[in-house]
């Protein structure tokens, strides 16, 4: 792990309304990185913008961003001036598994929001950032992508796609100096999981995800589980032979 940059690179958060995204923004701002929060209805984030700017004395801007609007994507990437040194996507949509099983429109929305949108955005940013030979691309995926399970395989399969995309991108850019980071949280206490009864030992606070992101960006391993125990849990789940796995209800 290296020290924070002398002139901290601008950080772009895609999905700036998410509590995980805001925690990541706060964490970078605390080390004096300027921040851009990109989200749908970005103007609604004015209070968060002011808060981060005031607490940490850094510049914080808002940018309008819809991960599903592919037509607008190249323009959005080009419009980020100065170009970001670090791009983090926390965009995601859990949806209702039961609804996704019956309603193809709903399922497609989940698939596109977790895979297509975030992957294509990070891919395009990588194209403009790699030639500079430094910086980091971070995708917040999920342990749900490690093995499709009955309870959330529509969401999980999209996260699996996202994880695979990031893996390929990292492989391709390994010599470029641009880091490609995959963060796989298990449970995180946020709006997405509100009202669910989550086991405390396996549930991270958004700030823990932020800490993991910062560590990975600064030189730790590029694929990280948040709460390391999830690495073990998922290894066990992946290791179950299919005949046995298919009878579980995880």
């Amino acid at each position: 792990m290296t020290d924070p940059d002398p002139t901290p690179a601008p950080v772009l958060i895609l999905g700036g309304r998410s509590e995980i995204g805001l925690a990541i923004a706060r964490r970078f701002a605390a080390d004096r990185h300027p921040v851009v929060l990109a989200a749908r209805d970005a103007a609604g984030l004015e209070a968060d913008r002011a808060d981060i700017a005031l607490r940490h004395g850094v510049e914080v801007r808002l940018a309008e961003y819809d991960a599903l609007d592919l037509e607008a994507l190249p323009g959005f990437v080009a419009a980020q001036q100065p170009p970001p040194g670090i791009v983090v996507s926390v965009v995601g949509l859990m949806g209702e598994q039961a609804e996704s099983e019956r309603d193809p429109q709903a399922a497609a929305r989940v698939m596109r929001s977790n895979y297509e949108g975030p992957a294509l955005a990070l891919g395009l940013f990588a194209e403009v950032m790699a030639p500079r030979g430094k910086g980091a691309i971070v995708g917040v995926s999920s342990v749900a992508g490690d093995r499709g399970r009955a309870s959330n395989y529509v969401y999980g399969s999209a996260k699996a796609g996202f994880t695979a995309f990031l893996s390929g991108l990292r492989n391709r850019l390994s010599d470029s100096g641009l880091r490609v980071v995959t963060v796989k949280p298990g449970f995180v206490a946020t709006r997405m999981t509100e009202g669910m009864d989550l086991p405390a030992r396996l549930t991270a606070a958004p700030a823990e995800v932020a800490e993991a992101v910062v560590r990975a960006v600064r030189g730790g391993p590029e694929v990280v589980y948040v709460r390391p125990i999830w690495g073990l849990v998922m290894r066990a789940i992946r290791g179950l032979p299919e005949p046995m796995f298919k009878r579980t209800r995880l």
Partner: protein
Amino acid sequence: MRPTRELSGWGRYPRRPGPVAAPRDAAEARAALSGGVVARGNGRAYGDSAMGAALTLETRRMDRMLAFDPERGQLVAEAGVLLGDVIDAFLPRGWFPFVTPGTKFVTLGGAIAADVHGKNHHREGGFGAFVDWVDLMGPDGQVTRASRETAPDLFAWTLGGMGLTGVILRAAIRLRPVETGWIRQTSIMAPDLAAAMAAFEAHDAATYSVAWIDCLARGPALGRSILMLGEHARRDELPVEQREHPFETPPRRRLTMPLDAPALALNRYAMRGFNALYWARGRRAPRETLVGWDGYFYPLDAVLGWNRIYGRRGFLQFQCVLPPDRAEQGLAALLGETARTGQGSFLAVLKRLGPGAGRFAFPMPGWTLALDFPAGPRSLALLDRLDAITLAHGGRFYLAKDARLAAATLHAADPRAARFRDMRRAAGLDTAFASAQSERLLL
């Protein structure tokens, strides 16, 4: 269905499960209003004031700082911001809260609702004196900006209103310009109560003053104490090598109380040991020292979760204020009764107060004494006797510390309580906003 969790104040007595809502913004707060609601800050009030009668509205997620005007030192922030966060963000820029209680882990909402006092109340007033306005959500979810100019009555009832006038969403508070993060502290030994009170009066001009009382001392030594005075140090008062970084103070070691301490740790010998230690430290201390802001204002914050030292059964605080003319007699009676019972008190703190800012706020000119005791039947009986002594000396009680006062005692001590209740009824606030404490005290 709302999530439920076990609720208590800092004293962990009483405890009971109750439904909670944790809104992120005004719209979510509005949606949660349903009758019998009270806002909760960071749960540093000792008793049941932040436990909703029907629902507890946690405000810690509404914790954004919104604007700062360096001309006036005015910070606008959401109510769930912690005072410690304000210090973290603004001390490096030369600003400090005008008023701070003995812990930095309070929210702005909690500091306003209890009109908290610091060690400078006798000279500068309480937290409420430095609040320009609050945005208050009423029973219907309407938000009123209340200040000394607009809705002045509602504003005055809200300072010290213990969450019973509505939910404070945002506030504008004033910060004090400071040149350094250091305090010049002077310790003065006082062999007894009369000497301690005389020392306070002799040092009336000091910005900060507080006394720690060795509350096991009896007889002629009753009220033996260390008076600690403080002034914000100017930059030219720092050693030369620190003047380049005037806001950097040494980081403090943090300790965390991991488990509930066994009740054994509480016996009076342990108390005696603690008090003796404090006494010896005060004796050794040179007359004037430079102390970092954290160590000066928040000695207890270094031990996170120190309330667990009293074990699972929790503990009780007692805090009253006595008017100047009856104070010496009353304080002697309170300390005498405490020493006689041998219940000990981990903390005994004496301060002077000036006039309060709010209509139902605790402070009034006089002397305030705070004591704490392990929860249990013996302490409860002792506190009843301390109540009677307070009442007999024209004093009143601090609701932010209270977990067990009888309604009749409160109303006998403080005629404002009935006016507060009548105002709440007339404005329809009584059904909308209620805490376990307000129900117990018939507010």
